[in-house]
């Protein structure tokens, strides 16, 4: 045990001390910060302010109010000037009070708004979001006028426009509603992605470490002092500790960016959403986005905080040992990438299942995926916000523990043969034989 600790210590210290560790740990959140800040700044810059003149020759809209955009990107001005006069002035960008002019022709037909059409001219091109906003407001105005002509009051109009949505609630969880499911999906997939990426990133780190020891032949000296199993465990735990340190630092730095960095330059998650054109459309409106954010607090955060590291660790131990075994079997030039295929396929499949789980958390695919040890770390992490049954979680953890004991045992047997095997290309069949070979 003591020797495993000595190995863990070396693996941890030498990796954490590397410049690449420092750079990755600091630059990832910094890159994220810069991305957020720059997209917000670009958004602000590109938005600008557009004063839009409305020349209503039809006189139909004289009582209609065209609301300005909340994000101050579009201001409407009803003016009495002639359209030709105003559009002539537009070319003088410096002195023109407006950036675009909309003309409602005198023969505009409220029952057939496409013939003749409203027309508009601009010198400064309005962006997609602004055009979309202007079109929506014009349509609203036409609809309201039509309703008015049909003697339908405003309250009835609003009621008529309301969409029908079935308010599902879960019998097992009274807090679960639509926004809850969306929040659970968002958080679930983030956790699934985090484990998916970690398995590849740190798994490769273990594999390279093993290959380095094999290539520079120090492994012969090491295995004359410690058992291959101790060496394997020391490396896996050491790299795991590096991964955990890096993840904790990332979470802290991200939190710092969200709470201090972004507000400092005047950006919040809400404002980010409003800068995205599609957010203004029908897909996700900022209100529902905010509701999703608000519903995160309704998720089983305590259980997630405990169980996520369990699945992180379980998945890491299960796959880490397999990556080590492949590293041991690889040639000195590391050209046998095909040996990685049996490991990478289940990880990719588990991510596919996780994507399905966030839409159908109770599907049989999700259920089995959350139990099978090779897929459960990614699948169950994505499922946790949906509050799976406790017996399902316990069974999944028990199977995961059994799974990593099994893979570590298999991997250790491949590892101890592989690390001393030089100058030979190894095929998958041989790996299988090594499991049963005597040391």
């Amino acid at each position, binding site marked *: 045990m003591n020797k495993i600790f*000595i*190995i863990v210590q070396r693996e941890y210290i030498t990796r954490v001390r590397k410049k690449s560790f420092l750079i990755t740990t600091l630059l990832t959140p910094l890159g994220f910060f810069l991305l957020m800040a720059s997209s917000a700044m670009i958004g602000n810059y590109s938005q600008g302010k557009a004063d839009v003149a409305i020349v209503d020759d039809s006189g139909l809209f004289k009582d209609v109010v065209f609301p300005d955009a909340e994000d101050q990107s579009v201001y409407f001005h009803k003016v009495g000037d002639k359209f030709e006069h105003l559009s002539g002035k537009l070319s003088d960008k410096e002195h023109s009070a407006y950036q675009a002019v909309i003309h409602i022709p005198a023969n505009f037909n409220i029952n057939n708004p496409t013939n003749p059409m409203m027309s508009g001219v601009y010198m400064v091109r309005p962006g997609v979001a602004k055009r979309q906003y202007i079109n929506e407001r014009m349509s609203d105005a036409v609809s309201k006028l039509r309703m008015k002509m049909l003697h339908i009051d405003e309250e009835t109009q609003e009621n008529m426009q309301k969409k029908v949505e079935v308010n599902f609630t879960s019998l097992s969880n009274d807090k679960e509603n639509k926004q809850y499911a969306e929040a659970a999906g968002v958080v679930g997939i983030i956790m699934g992605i985090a484990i998916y990426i970690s398995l590849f990133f740190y798994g490769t780190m273990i594999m390279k470490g093993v290959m*380095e020891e094999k290539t520079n*032949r*120090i492994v012969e*000296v090491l*295995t*004359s*002092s410690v058992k291959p199993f101790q060496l394997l465990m020391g490396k896996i735990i050491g790299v795991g500790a590096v991964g955990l340190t890096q993840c904790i630092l990332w979470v802290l730095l991200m939190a710092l960016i969200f709470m201090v960095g972004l507000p400092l330059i005047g950006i919040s998650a809400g404002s980010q959403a409003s800068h995205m054109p599609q957010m203004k459309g029908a897909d996700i409106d900022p209100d529902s986005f905010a509701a999703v954010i608000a519903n995160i607090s309704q998720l089983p955060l305590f259980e997630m905080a405990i169980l996520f590291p369990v699945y992180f660790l379980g998945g890491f131990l299960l796959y880490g040992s397999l990556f080590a075994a492949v590293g041991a079997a690889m040639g000195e030039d590391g050209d046998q990438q095909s040996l990685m295929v049996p490991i990478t396929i289940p990880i990719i499949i588990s991510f596919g299942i996780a994507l399905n789980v966030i839409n159908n958390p109770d599907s049989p695919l999700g259920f089995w995926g959350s139990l099978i040890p090779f897929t459960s770390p990614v699948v169950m992490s994505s499922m946790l916000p949906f509050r799976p049954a406790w017996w399902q979680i316990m069974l999944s953890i028990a199977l995961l523990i059994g799974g990593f004991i099994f893979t570590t045992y298999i991997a250790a047997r491949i590892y101890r043969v592989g690390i*001393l095997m030089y100058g030979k290309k190894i095929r998958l069949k041989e790996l299988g034989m090594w499991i049963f070979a005597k040391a």
Partner: protein
Amino acid sequence: MALLALQNIVKQYEKYRASDDVSFKIPKGKIFGLLGPNGAGKTTLIRMITRILYPDSGHIFFNGEALSDKHTEYIGYMPEERGLYKKMRVGEHLIYLGRLKGMTHQQARESVDFWIKKFEIENWYNKNIEELSKGMSQKVQFIATVLHNPELLILDEPFSGLDPLNSKLIEEEIHRMSGEGKTIIFSTHRMEQVEEICDEIVLINKGKKILEGSVKELKHRFKENKFRVCFNGEIKNGLLDNVNVLEQRPGEVVVKFNVEHHGNELLKLFIDNNIEVTLFSEELPSINEIFIRQVQAN
């Protein structure tokens, strides 16, 4: 008493037998040569002694006890293909290897200080391994092998890549440690070093032990009754008709006698013919000759 004893060791790989019923003993305090051509099974034997591999059958005893993991702390092993972590510093690397051999951090640090001072490489302590030349790395590797003051030292081709000065330094250390009662297994292809350094040898070929004994005893065992005679004057015609002359130069001759003849008979021949003998010596085979002869015969 034997520090290490191998009894009927068998190790079978997939298609060939790397050790085939090998038995020998290594006396305490001796420098023991483990010899054999490439692929003879030397490394497999060493790996079994260092517990990297386990024999399929047979027993290994260390100081009279069945060899177990606890004994690895009494063994220092420098393999032929050796390496170090390139990104580590010399000092911390040595301490790490010392700790894996059961030393505390403090003990390892003290021992590292002692050795780097002895080898006059104190200024390397904080150097990165990747900055060292091959010869420098060899020195560090030697220190890593002896750091924990092992009872048994296994050196596989310890002089490869070393310049004559460093070779001498390591050789002196081997002799000094042997003088202190340490047992050393020395594996090499360079036979002149075997004669110079080893007390006893075992010769392995195709997984089997084909020869064993002290260097002196083996040389006598394989002697061919060859004698070298240096003299003043001339040999008369017919004087050496009854002996097998191998080499003949003015003032010097090498002859081979039948085993039933004694060297004194040759000497007497010269004396009786009034030829002044300045040197008379028995020509013993070199370990290299014995090695080649035995391997070819096998």
